[in-house]
């Protein structure tokens, strides 16, 4: 196997075969919590991706200096550092998104996707591969959040690009009465379950293992 092939696999694995949401069911808390609107879902995905890439790189660089017995606390410290940075950046430049995401931004610290990649990949593999892996998993996470948020916003609100009324595009006209269920947490579970079912059917159909 040549060099570029390995990197390509690292990238695509996180998006398709080991998609953190649809295949591994990791990081469900923000997936269910912030996907009522597309913008919130994508914002959350991008914030988590930034933390994931940065922490993957740093942990991979430090892997020879981290004692095995205390590796989890070390990972958490690295991740928490980047989460704090992201939180401050969001607060400064995207206050509306920061308000909408609320407690889920600090909760990125305990997101299993990020800790899982640190433990399973970054702490064992070379730096550049960890970087690619972080980008791939981040894209997969963001895509999944965006897809779920798109379904929930279209069905539950009848809009795209809400909740801000200036940017919101109403898809079905004024007479449309949205299905309020999908705007609520219970609807998040149902929508996620249906999407998981569809993804599983597609994987079986195209024989992706």
């Amino acid at each position, binding site marked *: 196997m040549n060099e570029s092939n390995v990197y390509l696999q690292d990238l695509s694995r996180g998006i398709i075969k080991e998609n953190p949401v649809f295949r591994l069911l990791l990081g469900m808390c923000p997936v269910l919590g912030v996907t009522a609107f597309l913008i919130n879902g994508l914002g959350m995905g991008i914030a988590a991706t930034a933390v994931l890439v940065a922490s993957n790189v740093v942990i991979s660089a430090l892997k020879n200096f981290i004692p095995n017995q205390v590796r989890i606390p070390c990972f958490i410290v690295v991740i928490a550092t980047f989460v704090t940075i992201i939180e401050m950046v969001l607060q400064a430049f995207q206050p509306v998104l920061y308000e909408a995401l609320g407690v889920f931004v600090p909760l990125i610290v305990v997101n299993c996707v990020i800790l899982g990649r640190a433990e399973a990949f970054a702490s064992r593999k070379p730096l550049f591969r960890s970087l690619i892996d972080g980008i791939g998993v981040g894209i997969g996470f963001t895509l999944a959040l965006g897809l779920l948020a798109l379904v929930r916003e279209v069905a539950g609100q009848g809009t795209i690009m809400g909740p801000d009324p200036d940017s919101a595009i109403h898809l079905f006209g004024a007479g449309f009465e949205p299905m309020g*269920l999908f705007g609520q947490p219970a609807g998040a579970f149902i929508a996620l379950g249906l999407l998981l079912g569809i993804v599983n059917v597609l994987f079986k159909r195209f024989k992706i293992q």
Partner: protein
Amino acid sequence: MIIIEEKLVVSSSPHMRSVESIQSVMTDVLIALFPAALMAVLLFGYRALITMVISIITAMLIEAVWRRKRDLFSDGSAAVTGLLLALTLPAAVPWWLVVVGSASAIIIGKQVFGGIGYNIFNPALVGRAILVVSWGGHMAGDIWPSPQPFAFGIDVSTVTGATALAAPEIAMTFSFSELFIGNIPGSLGETSALALLIGGIWLVYKGHIDYRIPGGFIATVFVLGAAFGGGFYGNQLMTGLFHVVAGGVVIAAIYMATDFVTTPVTPLGRLIFGIGCGLITMLIRLWGTLPEGVTFAILIMNAATPIIDNFTIPRQFGGVNKSA
């Protein structure tokens, strides 16, 4: 020497056979629901008929498409689900709401779990719960049209009000015979306790439902209503009776809490199930924010069914207690 005239057939089990099939049982349930459906049309006019037809056809179509079967009626369970859902809807709901409710009852309530026999929750009530959560404005509040007996052409959506359960003052405007016969605002099929009881007696006579579930359910509602209902309608006992005949307790106790798939199979478990349904219903009615709690009571008890079954396994005849 004894000569055996008839030859003895030696075969493996099962030895007891029945002519009953899922289809025949479901047809019996449809027959049992006929009086309630007839009362709905008599009271709420042609809109009730349209709602029921849309709901049943949607349910059967979705089921047939999902299972890739040409047979529309098939085992009849989809028709029962569709009719039960329609009977829990207000008379003036728009047609698309019925379609969405019926489709989600079949898809989310039943088929995603693997179809008939595998669903955890009562499909009709899943459909209703989804509608209540999604379009509360169409499903609850002052949207219940007053019935117009034998006036089939009248547009039912003109005069609307709250159901008898909303407040004691509203309850007092209906006489007890009106509540029993069903001449009150409410869901299509829930208002007439009389028609529902006729169908219920037929089902018990045919042996399709166990009296323990409706019995436990209705008795619990009566006792709690008498004890904590507030004592309007003259005295405590009448308040208890009011809580039984008003709202959806009768239809739920006879037709929904006795669903074969989602309720316990042991006799004691069925009694516990019925009592639990009555308890949660009255908790929601008396101390909750919603006027009616039958839907969520049965759904919650559906979730508890495996636990109830697990703890009420009867001792085998001739068996011994396992020493702990």
